[in-house]
């Protein structure tokens, strides 16, 4: 029998505001422990939360980018549980009245099919502190750092629309891309600013009912997501195949080293979080005008951008995707286009080719690199004007990338200008012909391929600086002149 996997995700994303969501501490990753804390994010008595406007706007921004409905009225609730990283013993979150509801994200499945993954909601909440475990067994203890406590967090909850671990991965990558694009989060899985829990069940293919659901907690890398979901799908599939479907819904963990999920607790025993409205926080009333203002500030989203690249610039789907999926790359590409009057495809090739290669090599983003769109556009103009050859241009480009110098300066400094002086080249051409009687004879015997060899010799002799078109022309002329 065939089985179908059903997956829904709960994604937690840290928003990159300057300050925390309910206090003024800096929202920074990687500081010395407990240096970005105040009485508020330490849960000291009497300190009250005051909501950061930017966090609300970022949540709405995410909602708009993901086609959600922005709730005209929403509220904050207390989600209550005891854990040492949660200083108030409740997390300020949103219960039945979240900021964003509905929405969805289009993905292309591994089978090439377009599909919309529906969202249930996006809500705003606060992050907990961090726990570090020290020692083992009876001597073990834990250390707490509250720098992270109170960072703004959005929780994005999908409907159970994903049908394989691969789809889940594609969805998450796409989600990450959009959230980075609209600049609400860095979405760094390794720093924990983008992480997810997954609900997974397996059912006979074609069945309309859901199988028993397992919740896998704290998946903190794409690899973990893929491996854990694949493992769990197989496990549940085997249970079904053996006629022993799981008896209960469970919360399960992922053991990276053993490559297995493991039982944590049955779902029925799920904590009653005793949600209730937080009396310290007045509700949010989001006016249509505010939403429109935020919408107006949204950048063109990757999907829209790619469509435009194909339509307006005639780029292939693949090229449009490569150029459009990172906001910085797209901005670099478009800025260069604005400065350069030649072919779009030429710019595209340099951005996707040499630029991407060097960025990759140095692990930089376009903004972090020293190369400016002005420099690239100037270099391309120089190629078009015959001032440098395409080959030399690669050297110039590399130099621009590392030094940030303008191309003209590099060409001048290194003497890389193209030799287009006919009288100078014709002397060299005659010398080469004299040195290589064999290929000359071949050419005259009709083996025109020999011309390439001769061009190569001239280029070699000029260290690539000769104008190749001109060399070609002169060689032909001189060959004709031979007796």
């Amino acid at each position, binding site marked *: 029998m065939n089985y179908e996997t059903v997956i829904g995700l709960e994604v937690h994303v840290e928003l990159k505001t300057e300050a925390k969501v309910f206090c003024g501490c800096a929202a920074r990753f990687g500081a010395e422990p407990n240096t970005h804390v105040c009485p508020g994010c330490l849960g000291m008595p009497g300190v009250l939360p005051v909501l950061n406007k930017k966090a609300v706007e970022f949540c709405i921004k995410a909602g708009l980018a993901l086609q959600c409905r922005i709730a005209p009225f929403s509220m904050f609730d207390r989600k209550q549980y005891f854990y040492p990283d949660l200083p108030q013993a*409740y997390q300020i979150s949103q219960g039945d009245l979240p900021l964003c509801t509905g929405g969805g994200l289009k993905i292309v499945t591994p089978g090439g099919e377009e599909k919309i993954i529906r969202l249930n909601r996006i809500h705003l909440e606060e992050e907990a502190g961090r726990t570090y475990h020290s020692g083992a067994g009876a001597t073990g203890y834990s250390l707490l750092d509250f720098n992270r406590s109170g960072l703004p967090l959005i929780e994005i909850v999908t409907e159970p629309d994903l049908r394989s671990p691969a789809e889940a991965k594609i969805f998450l990558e796409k989600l990450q891309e959009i959230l980075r694009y609209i600049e609400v989060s860095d979405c760094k899985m390794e720093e924990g600013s983008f992480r997810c829990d997954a609900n997974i069940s397996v059912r006979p293919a074609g069945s309309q009912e859901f199988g028993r659901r397992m919740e896998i907690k704290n998946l903190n890398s794409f690899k973990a997501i893929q491996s854990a979901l694949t493992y769990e799908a197989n496990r549940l599939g085997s249970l079904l195949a053996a006629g022993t479907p799981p008896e209960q819904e469970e919360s399960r963990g992922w053991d990276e080293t053993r490559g297995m999920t493991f039982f944590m607790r049955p779902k029925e025993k799920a904590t009653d979080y005793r949600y209730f409205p937080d009396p310290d926080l007045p509700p949010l009333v989001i006016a249509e005008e505010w939403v429109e203002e935020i919408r107006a500030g949204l950048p063109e989203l990757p999907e829209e951008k790619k469509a435009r690249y194909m339509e307006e610039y005639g780029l292939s789907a693949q090229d449009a995707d490569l150029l459009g999926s990172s906001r910085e790359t797209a901005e670099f590409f478009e800025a260069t286009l604005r400065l350069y009057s030649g072919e779009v495809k030429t710019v595209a090739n340099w951005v996707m080719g040499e630029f991407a290669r060097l960025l990759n090599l140095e692990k930089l983003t376009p903004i972090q690199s020293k190369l400016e769109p002005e420099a690239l556009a100037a270099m391309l103009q120089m190629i078009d004007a015959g001032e440098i050859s395409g080959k030399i241009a690669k050297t110039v480009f590399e130099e621009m990338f590392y030094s940030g110098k303008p191309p003209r300066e590099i060409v001048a400094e290194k003497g890389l200008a193209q030799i287009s002086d006919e009288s100078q080249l014709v002397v060299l051409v005659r010398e080469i012909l004299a040195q290589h009687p064999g290929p000359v004879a071949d050419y005259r015997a009709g083996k025109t391929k020999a011309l390439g060899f001769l061009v190569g010799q001239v280029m070699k002799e000029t260290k690539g600086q000769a104008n190749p078109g001109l060399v070609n022309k002169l060689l032909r002329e001189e060959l004709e002149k031979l007796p």
Partner: protein
Amino acid sequence: MELSTLSLKELGNALRKKAVSAREITGAFLERIKRFNPDLNAFVTVAEEQALAAANEADLRLARGERVTPLTGIPVAVADTICTKGIKTTCASRILENFIPPYDATVVSRLQEAGAVVIGKTNSDEFGAGTTTGYSAFGPVCNPWDKNREPGGDGGAVAVAAGLAPLAISFDTGGNLRRAAAFCGVAGLKPAYGSVSRFGLAALAPSLEQIGPLARQVEDLALLYQVLAGPDPLDATSLPAGAPGRSGQEFTGTAATGRPGLRIGLPREYFAGEELQAEVKDLVLAATGILTEKDGEQVDLSLPSTGYALAAHILLAAAEASSSLARYDGVRYGYRSPEAADIDLLYKKTRTEGFGREAKRRILLGTLVLSAECYGDYYLNAQKVRTLVIREFTEAFTKCDLILTPVTRELPGRAGEEKSPLRQYQDESYTVAANLAGLSGLSVPCGLVDGLPVGVQLLAPAGREDLLFQVARTLEKAVGRFSSPFLRG
């Protein structure tokens, strides 16, 4: 000069005329605290060093002729549930027995900016959960009129009544401040919700409680309130300046003019029950007579949800308390049980040893009320009752200018008297509605029965504190000042 009996104005005049220094005033009250606090237990902590430093600072200001306020150089007792930077703040609980906040409550900052001297931290029930101070981890407070009686739930009222401080600030969750004011023969105000910042008040029931002033005279009460009230960006439930319900804070009308045509509402439900002691009822009605004798009017009112209001208050106060008190876990500050081998035990032992009985009772009740099974029936219905109560008061205030009721059903009880928790909650029958509906409630003495003070409660809509002060002043003038045996001394 006997400083302990002087009014705020009198103290201020003495200071400005250099008849006395701020240091001498603070020193005199510190002396009185040393002498009488062992008997009364009104203070948990006396901030002698900080108080003298603040008094010296005030003297310097006065000497330099800098801007002074009516509170410059005046000692104020602050409830120990209100955080004071560098001064131990226990909330009368063992769980915070050594907690020294690194921050000041907004009201404390406002007092300090006004030049006031925080003289010490006053006792109450643990986190204010109780009505008699019998649930303080540091022992009960005595009533300064009769040491064998309870003082109501607030040590600040006792400090003021006994002349251990000219003024106090405390908090009111269901009537503890007003009840203590009544039982100690002083004036106390629970301001309308949102008029005084709650930042730095260790929460018990955040949707119900407000910080308020206590004083021996209504005029002093108004002056102190003016310093406390005002918008605070650190409290999202603090009304902005100019918001409806936020008073302009200029109470020039505290003169006892006897307002012509005053309509005083008397809600039937507050006078009907047998539990209202006859002598108390008589005095309260006499006060009504005084206030309406010129051309005032008594308006007969009905507030049919009064019974439900108490039930709703008990449930909501407990629900919020269970959440507010969850943070005390021995992890970051406060008491930690020494015995715990793992985190679960740490929580359990710390909270078992750190909290007293009433706090535990409320946490249990609140945990139940917020549980999935009870949320709809208990929590939500209580919140709906609250809507009813608010509406009934809104309607009532279209028929009258203010509402007058007793503060308590009886005279102060015997200290240590055994009462069931329900019976204790019922002690606040007349005061909880103001907390539920966010009204201003002022408790002012109206007479003595068997040598024990009785108070009358005046309720007004948010923003009408001016009216409360004015009417209370009229009453004060008619019935005279109340000096406890400690003051007559």
